[in-house]
């Protein structure tokens, strides 16, 4: 059974009288431990798809089964819980809280999970170590470089010990050298910890870090390509 199964997923937005079909009839399955990249031109629905997979958004139609659960039927609170337990997010603009240091940011999901302080600290320290930021624990985002901020975001996801990491253009705001170190990090996490990764990217070179490339065009899957 795949970890993620999308069947006939659609997502449309109504803008006054105009209906925008951001996603139409998406069928996609992602197995446990896969590293999938999604490519496509701007506005093709990549983010919309990732948000639905991440339970941040609900599809307008179709079925979404995550680890055997029918997601579209779940309550808002239950979705919060699923995001908290299963899914780590990495965004293009990092989305760290400016007032908190690396430790404070990375422990947020565990706070909402109700993990005790000592355990939280231990796991966050480990995660920051795994992304090579042991010496930046008490730095605020404004005191870190872009690459370091993104690594804090990855540490935040790692501390959750997620089944799934969703990354929406994680290297979009970084230079290519820093981008590659982030991609190496993803590859390592995927290979060593078996974390499933779904990543959106513009960049063909970055896309080749995954096992499989899903290409979107106008809200539909145009083709899938296995990376050789």
């Amino acid at each position: 059974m795949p970890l993620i199964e999308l069947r006939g997923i659609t997502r449309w937005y109504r803008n006054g009288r105009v209906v925008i079909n951001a996603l139409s009839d998406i069928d996609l399955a992602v197995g446990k431990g896969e590293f999938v990249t999604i490519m496509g031109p701007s506005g093709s629905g990549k983010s919309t798809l990732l948000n639905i997979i991440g339970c941040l958004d609900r599809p307008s139609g179709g079925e979404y089964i995550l680890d055997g659960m029918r997601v579209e039927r779940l309550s808002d609170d239950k979705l919060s819980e699923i995001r908290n337990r299963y899914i780590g997010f990495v965004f293009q603009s990092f989305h760290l809280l400016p007032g908190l240091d690396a430790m404070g940011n990375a422990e947020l999901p565990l706070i909402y999970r109700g993990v005790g302080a000592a355990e939280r600290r231990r796991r966050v320290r480990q995660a920051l170590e795994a992304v090579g930021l042991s010496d930046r624990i008490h730095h605020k985002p404004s005191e870190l470089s872009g690459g370091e901020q993104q690594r804090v975001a990855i540490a935040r996801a790692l501390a959750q010990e997620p089944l799934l990491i969703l990354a929406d253009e994680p290297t979009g705001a970084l230079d290519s050298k820093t981008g590659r170190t982030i991609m190496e990090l993803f590859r390592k996490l995927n290979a060593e910890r078996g974390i499933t990764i779904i990543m959106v990217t513009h960049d063909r070179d970055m896309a080749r870090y995954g096992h499989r490339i899903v290409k979107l065009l106008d809200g539909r899957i145009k083709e899938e390509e296995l990376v050789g």
Partner: protein
Amino acid sequence: MRFIFGAQMAWHGVAVNPLRSGLTMLGVAIGVASVISLMGIGEGARLAVVRQFESLGSNVIVIKAHDAKAEFQPEEARELVERVSGLRYASPVTRTNAVMKWRRARGQVDILGVSSDFPQLRDHKLVSGRFFTPWHVEQRSPVAVLGYNIGAGLLGGRSPVGQTVTLNGQTFRIVGVLEKKGEGQGEGIDDKIIIPYTTAMKIAGKRTVDEIWVKAESAKAADLAIAQLGRIYRRKLGLDNKAPVPTGGEQKQGETPGEGPGTGKPVEPKPAPAPETPGKDSTPGLELGKDIITITNLNTLVEEADKANRVMTLLLGGIAAVSLLVGGLGIMNIMLVAVTERTGEIGVRRALGAKRSDLLMQFLLEALYLSGMGAAAGTAAGLWGVGIFNRYGLTAVVSLEAVKVAVLVALGCGLLFGVYPAWTAASVPPVEALRR
């Protein structure tokens, strides 16, 4: 657990923007401080008036003639105590003045002529010596009891009891000095000289008195006595006693043209054109023209003054509460700004697993912190303000009730005005929030 972190995060929200949070709190603080200080002034004024009336003694009834023909024989005072049940003490009262000579100094003083019942009647103790006796009254003795200020002035604090003063050339022996009542209290008794009414009538050259004070055993007895006194004086003035008896603080016995008091000739009651008592009870059939005799229960005056001043206190509090409300709106304003500004934060928290209730709690607590700290600062400022008022001559008191009300209203404002922004925060869809 979640709550503790909600509280911490909310605190973080307050601390991250100290200037803005400070200004918001200031709005609430000003509201709370003005409620406390203005209600303090109102309450101070109320207590001052109440104290003033209470300084005249409790359960005291004042019977006053406003027409020379209606004036009383001094003996009537004692008779009233025997005739009216529930009355304990009585005193005819004569007010006059005289030139006082003390050693080389001379000056005009107010004289109060009363009976030996005075200390019990007015609940007034002596600091030294003793009050004059019924025998002194009977003998028209030249004895004097000094009001506190006069007594303290003569020998620079040493008791003047046993010394003599001259009033209008007659030598008086000082037998006692009254306790201090305080400025403006007890009709300025501290600056008066009290002598037997018989002696005072001689100085004033009068055979009758225009005022009688009686004291009832209890507040209830005073109410009953008022009714009975009303009947007595109505009959005495030749008015019908079948008319309904008023129970209010002040009874006014109508004038009967051509009829002096005590002529004994019964007169038909005149129809009343309109009830004219400004107070509560009208006495139909009694009022006609001006009042000849008024019977006043001081207890009732205290109650009325108390009531009027309570209304004023509430009014002041109400005005101040408006500024408190404005402070509350400030909280709402700033929380709405915070929610708009921090949609990104809201989105991140939601993505990481915060439930709507977590955000609701976080923003609500933030509003409560602002209002709570504002209320604390405002209470401190209000108490300080009351102190300042007092230093500059306004009597203000800290009313615990005002503090309680102000703080509760402030917190209520925080809650009330925090709910909407917090609800907005909790309702932002995570995707929307992350898009910013």
